[in-house]
Structure formats: structure tokens, C-alpha cells
């Protein structure tokens, strides 16, 4: 009994440590945003003179709504398109036989190994050639293909029991029907997990959207924050407030969807 108690004390300690480490910097972010400019770096966790001035200033000086809408549009479109094409490709790699499969999969994987800063210039050439410079689609399309998503989906589909696929096919379902009617619903947690992850990544991306935008109406919220950061006279409370504004949608999205993350996954006993 004592031993069990020891383990659970350890558990509580480690767990608290995890949560504190995760959340503490975020608390600092919020508290900094609520401080007046000259107190941002006073290292108090609770602001001495809390104020919403920084937020007011952010909404006054920046076109936050355009930024948020652009970010939202980019992130949502990438997510939707990516989920569709990744799950399709992954299903083929996991469940179907076709000549050249191994090579094609290695091809897909190898794209993960390309460091992005190197392809900026050729990528912009391509986007410009497609007439998408200064268009949100010029930001979206290059971000859609991504080996990670294919890789994770494939892993998921591979680990689903073989009998599932076989029995559906024997029942006369076409490959496509088996995919849409059986595998997609079962992979719902994976769709949500990856969907949130793609959304967040693209919501937060900044380098590529800056390159493509040629007009302030195409600026995302992250570019707007970077604009605040880039000057010789920086108001850190403004930057922190803008960051809080930028992080609210992703936090809401995750909090809303997180309970679906693992719910659909209860496949106990389905394994061979």
C-alpha cells in the first residue's frame, strides 16, 4: 500500500511539473499583455497595474480582422485540402497493391527532408508563373503537399485490422467505397488530430506568407505581429497582446475538438 502511495505521489509530482512547464510561459504571455508598457519586463506574474490598453492599441493600429480572416482562410483551406489528399494517398499506400508502390512511398517520404528556406526562391518563381503572387492561394497551395500527413495516415491505416478491409471487399464494396464508408469514419480521430495540427501550423506560419503578400490586405495576423516586432522602437506589451489575440482561435479550436481526439479510437478487440 505504501508503495502504491509512493508511486501516486511521484505521479502527482511529475504531472504537476509537466503542466506547470507547459502553462507557465503562456501565463507570462497573458500577464505581459495586460501590463502597461514600462512594466512588461518587471517579472511579476500578476500585473501590478493591469490594463487593457495594449489590446485597445492593437485593435486601433492594426487591421486585426483582415489579418485573422486571412490566417483563418489559409489555415482552413490547407487543412481541408491536405486531409483529403493525404488520407487518399495514405490509404493507397497502406491497403492497395500497385507496381512502384515502394518507390512512390520513398519519394513521398523524401520530401520531408527538404529544408524550406532553400526552396523559397524557386517556389516563388512557380507561384508567380501560376499568377498566384499576391494571392492567398499562392500561400495555400505549396503548403498542401506534406509527407508527414501521408506518413501518419498510412501508419494508422496499416495498424487497422486486415479483416476489416478484406470483409468489406468480400461484401462487394469497391475500393473507393471501402475507403470512404469504412476507413474514413474509423480514422476520425486521426483526421481531427492532424487537422488541428495542420491548422495550427499554417495559422502560425509566417515566412512564406510574408514572401507572397504584396499588399497589406493579404497580410496574416502573424505578419502583423512581426511588423510590430521589427522596429527600433518596440512596445512589447503590444506584441504580447497581439500574440494573445493570435493564439485565442487556435486554443479555442483545440479545446473544442480535443475530446474527439481519442474518442473514436476505442478499437479494443478489433485488433487481430
Amino acid at each position: 500500500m505504501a508503495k502504491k502511495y509512493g508511486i501516486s505521489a511521484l505521479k502527482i509530482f511529475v504531472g504537476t511539473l509537466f503542466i506547470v512547464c507547459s502553462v507557465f510561459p503562456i501565463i507570462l504571455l497573458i500577464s505581459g499583455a495586460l501590463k502597461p508598457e514600462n512594466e512588461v519586463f518587471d517579472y511579476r506574474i500578476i500585473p501590478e497595474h493591469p490594463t487593457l490598453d495594449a489590446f485597445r492599441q492593437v485593435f486601433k493600429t492594426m487591421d486585426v480582422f483582415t489579418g485573422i480572416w486571412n490566417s483563418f482562410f489559409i489555415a482552413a483551406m490547407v487543412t481541408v485540402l491536405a486531409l483529403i489528399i493525404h488520407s487518399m494517398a495514405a490509404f493507397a499506400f497502406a491497403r492497395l497493391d500497385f507496381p512502384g508502390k515502394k518507390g512512390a512511398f520513398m519519394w513521398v517520404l523524401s520530401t520531408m527532408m527538404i529544408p524550406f528556406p532553400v526552396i523559397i526562391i524557386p517556389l516563388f518563381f512557380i507561384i508567380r508563373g501560376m499568377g498566384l503572387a499576391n494571392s492567398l492561394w499562392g500561400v495555400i497551395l505549396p503548403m498542401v503537399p506534406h509527407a508527414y500527413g501521408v506518413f501518419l495516415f498510412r501508419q494508422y491505416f496499416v495498424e487497422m485490422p486486415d479483416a476489416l478491409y478484406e470483409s468489406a471487399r468480400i461484401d462487394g464494396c469497391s475500393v473507393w467505397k471501402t475507403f470512404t464508408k469504412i476507413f474514413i469514419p474509423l480514422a476520425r480521430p486521426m483526421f481531427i488530430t492532424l487537422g488541428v495540427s495542420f491548422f495550427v501550423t499554417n495559422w502560425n506560419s509566417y515566412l512564406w506568407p510574408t514572401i507572397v503578400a504584396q499588399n497589406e490586405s493579404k497580410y496574416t495576423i502573424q505578419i502583423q505581429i512581426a511588423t510590430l516586432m521589427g522596429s527600433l522602437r518596440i512596445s512589447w506589451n503590444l506584441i504580447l497582446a497581439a500574440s494573445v489575440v493570435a493564439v485565442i482561435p487556435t486554443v479555442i479550436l483545440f479545446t473544442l475538438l480535443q475530446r474527439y481526439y481519442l474518442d473514436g479510437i476505442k478499437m479494443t478487440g478489433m485488433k487481430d
Partner: protein
Amino acid sequence: MKNQELRKYVKRGISCLVAGMMVIGMAGCQSQENEAGKTDDSSQSVDGPVEIVYWNQWTQEDETAFLEKYIEEYNNSQDKYHVTFLAIPFEEYTTTKLATAFATNEAPDIFECSPAIITQYLDAGVCEPLDDIITEEIRADFTDSAFDTVSRDGHIYGLPLDSDLVALYYNKEILAEHGIEPPTTWEELKEAAAALNTDDYSGFTFEVDKGDWQCFTFYPFVWMQGGTLFTEDGMANLNSEEVINALSLWKDLLDSGNCNETPGRSVSDISILTNGETAMQINGSWSVLRADPEKYGVVPLPAPEEGGNSASVSGGWNVLVSNQSSEEEIAGAKDFISWLWLNVDHVKEFDTEAKFSYSMRNSVIEAGEDIYYSNDNAAVFSDEVISTAKPEIALSGEAKEIVSTMIQNALYSMSAKEAAEIAQEDMLKYQEESGSVFFG
């Protein structure tokens, strides 16, 4: 059952949303192309105004408001040209954004460069000479060295907009508390840093991070000893005694533990001092209006020894015109620059109202006199610092890398002399291969 129905609705809702967004997006994309198409047409036809695109890195509200106000006035004043302006985050502007735009022929018509990046654009020959708008008469109004960094082969390619100077800011209260006078020599600087350093704030803050800003603030420490980083004929002089002394000073300061080893942000930001994180900070004229003269003072950078000279560095942005633009666009760009940036009243308003910055144009300095002496700190810059300033060295990218690596090496991994010798060797090798020369 209910659940299923609900799910159906949710599903339908999601697909409607997705479809709707796609439509909006495509429409947006379409209209984009139209806009772009229109631009192309209009730059060729005589009917509509020619689109002139102006990019820079300003992000301060006052500065962009200034530019937007005058762009509107200019656009309304004539119908031949239409100027649009985009402010780009500093970090991307000087690195990825401008380079990508030029590499892919999407360059703006008007853009700005600081001495730290201008060399690559002038060397590449992507700029249009501005000799015709910067006439002899206008040139005579500028300081002697104003056009040094923007000239190539007898042509002037850029118009210097402003000039920022570097000096030493200090916290009056903290210094008084410790009974310390603002340092005037290197020895005093070290002693002051030691005396002022506490657990809560550092004695002295200078840039320890690698980069343009570190090089910028390093040069004056060499110059004030009468030394240079390059010889008169433009070749490396990095292992000279003066460079080694300056490196040693910085190294001693950092090693003493009395300085700010980890500034949470760029040292170009005066808030390190004004937030009470340090007692003294190297910073520039752009912060004059942000540092309350009641609380913070300014002195020239400390001289090497008693009675020695101080020095400063001046750097600012230059307006340039891309030669990738069409003839009409170039003409429009020049017209706008003449209208805005060659007008003394406009420049004065920009340098003294939209921000605090010196001009290299004498008549602007005269016109703005009351601002340049508006408080004690401003007066220090105007009386003591400006006369000792030399222009920032316009290094190429590779040369900049060698100089900044030298400073980093001296600060962190080897003796000042070793760092200087290595840099000297690398710089000579690079200069021989590329044929580049630098001055300062």
C-alpha cells in the same frame, strides 16, 4: 437517432462551409488576377495612371502615417502615376523578401536599403541612376560624404533619407545613487560597469548578438583611436592595433560579468534601459524622444583615454529605384521621389515629427533646429556626437560575415588578437578573389 440527425446536419454544415470558402477563395483569386492584369495594362496604356510600388521596412505608426498622407496627396495632385506602399517586417525585408522579389522579377519600383545591405544591390546592378533628379544644386546642400555609399562609377543611385547616430545612454538615478559620473574613457566605462552592476540590473549593455547591429556599434570604438578596419586603398586592416584594442575592450567588458550577457531583445531597443534592466546602454539618436531626459542622460561613447577623442557612427536608409521596372515606372518613381524626398519641408517633417533622425541635408538640419535642440539629450547628439560620426561601412554580405564572426570569436572563443588575425586572413582572401574594396 437524434444524434445521427445532428451529425448529418453538422456534416452538411461543414461541407457548405468548405464549399463556400472555396468559392470565396477562388473569387478572390480571380479578382486578384484581374487587378494584376489591370496593372499590366495600365502601365502600358496612356489612359490610366501608371502603378508605382514603394516598399520599405517602416513599421512605426507615425512614419507610415506620414508616408500614407503624402502618397495620398501625391496621387491626388496628378493623374499620371499612382503610388502604393507596403511596409514589410524588418527581419524579412532585409533578408528574404527583397532578394526573392528581385530574383523573380517582382521587384518594387521604389525601395530602401541601409548601408548594411546596399552593397549587394549596387554590385548586382539592379538600381537605376538618380543623377538627373539629384542635381548639382541639391547635392551641394548635402554633407560631403553623404553620397559615398550610394555612388558607383560616378553615378548616384540612392538618396540618403536620414542618419542615425550612436551614443551612450545612462540612467541618471542609478548613477547618482552609486555616486558615479557618466564615463568618458574606456577605463571609466569598465569601472562604472563594475560599480553599477547588481543582481537586478546590469552595469552596461552593448550588443552581444551577432549581426549588422553589432558591427554598427563596434566601428566607432576602432575609429576613436584613429584606426580603421580597412586601409586607405580599401584593403583589410583588421589585425591593426586599434581593431584588436577595441575587441579587447568588448571582451573585457563581457568577461567582467558586469554587462548584460543575455539582453532579452535587440540592444537597438532603448526599453532595456528604460525598463530598469541596465544602468547604461549603447543606443542611438532614434531613442531620444523615448528616453525621458529627466531620468536618462546621453554622453558620447567613452574615449580610449583621458583627453582622447570620441567617435560615433551614422547609418540610415537610402531610397533607390529598381531598373527592373519599365521606363514609365522608373519615370514615375523618380517623379515621386523628387516630389516627396527632395522637398526640404517634407524631409524636415519626416525627420523631426514622424521620428527623430538627422538629415544629411544642411537645409533640413537648419529648418529643424528647434527639434534638434528640444532637450538636453537631443542637444548632446546635435552638438557633440554628430561631428564625430563617420558613415557606416557598406560591407558586402561575405565581408560582413567575416567582421561579425571576428567580433563573436573575440567575445566568446579566442583572444582578440587571434580573432583579428583570422579575420584579416579571411578578408584578404575574400577581397583578392572578389576584387571588392571597402572604406572605413
